């Protein structure tokens, strides 16, 4: 989909979205909402997970220590899906979907369909097995969200919003991410056939 902006125009657009968010409400963050979605589903299966409580700051408590931390903030958000951060993430998905619908592809429909299954760089290196790519994507998602929750944020909250505010945590997170991401990407994907450096 030939929607990709030149680097500078893209940078200005992205900067506007970070800045407007903090000016109007608060810095952007995404990974917490994976926890909120999990908590909603878990509470559907077992409604003793989140309870109302007069003793916590948020008015909600949880039998799970993570949902119960910071005065039951996560428990409260999972019990009330119509909150800023959750709706923000749903709207973010809609925004990307809309952008994709509005953009024209410069590839053939077959090429687009193939790319939606796995990125070209993956296919060149590991072949066209969907099972392999989907399994790897599942495992990668597990690591990314486990790591993000341990770190207390992700690319949005720590890297973009964090460094924008000059937060020490943002620089530390970025250091940790690139210390593994760059060598792992090079080891996994570099081969003579795809232009290794």
């Amino acid at each position, binding site marked *: 989909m030939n929607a990709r902006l030149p680097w500078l125009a893209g940078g200005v657009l*992205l900067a506007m979205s970070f800045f407007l968010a903090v000016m109007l409400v608060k810095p952007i963050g995404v990974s917490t909402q994976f926890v909120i979605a999990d908590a909603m589903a878990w509470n559907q299966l077992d409604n003793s997970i989140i309870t109302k409580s007069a003793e916590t700051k948020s008015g909600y408590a949880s039998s799970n*220590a993570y949902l119960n931390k910071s005065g039951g903030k996560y428990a409260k958000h999972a019990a009330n899906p119509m909150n800023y951060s959750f709706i923000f993430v749903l709207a973010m998905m809609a925004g990307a979907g809309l952008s994709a619908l509005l953009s024209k592809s410069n590839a053939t429909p077959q090429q687009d369909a193939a790319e939606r299954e796995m990125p*070209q760089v993956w296919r060149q290196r590991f072949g066209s097995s969907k099972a392999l790519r989907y399994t790897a994507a599942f495992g990668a998602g597990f690591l990314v969200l486990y790591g993000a929750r341990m770190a207390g944020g992700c690319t949005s909250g720590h890297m973009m919003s964090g460094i924008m505010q000059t*937060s020490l945590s943002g620089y530390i997170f970025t250091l940790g991410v690139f210390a*593994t991401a760059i060598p792992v990407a090079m080891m996994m*994907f570099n081969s003579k056939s795809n232009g290794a450096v």
Partner: protein
Amino acid sequence: MTTILLAIVLGLFFGFALHRVGATSPHHIINMLRLKDLRLMKTILFAIGLSSVVLFLGLALGLINVGHISVKSAYVGVLIGGAIFGTGFAIGGLCPGTSLTAVATGRKDAMFFVLGGLVGAFAYMLSFDFISQTFLMDKIAGGKVTLAATGSAKYDALLTSVSGTAVAIAIGIALMAFAWWLPEDPFSKDKTHHNMVPAE
């Protein structure tokens, strides 16, 4: 209700921007991480630098409510969690925000990434009780601190002898200058090869 309306407008804008800069494509992210195509890195560095300069100017001029600043704590788990994150980031070519937006653009591999992410976040919820008692939660330099003074009483600044505005603007300009200087494809000898960019 205003907050929900803002969530919709700001979320739409952010998702739109992520797609337009190419961040919803694992192909671009993986090629950025193996230092093959740095266009996305240039974009992100520039965006962080520019938004930081505008934010601190806005704070200095009193145009931005300092209560909107929200600084996350620095602790050992930020570094270790970041390293775990980085491993998955390289394998998948996706992060939390870009995986959800990639699902919205129809990517099938991103759906599996999101499912894995939900399980990973759940695993952390279950292991938190244990992890919270380890060195992973040990704070670094006081935890919720910034380099530049933001003016918020909630967060201490590490650099106190210089004006926060000056520090943040200097860092922001340095990030933008670095973004400008970085080559889009640093190691390519064959420029024609670069046209082989697939669909997003």
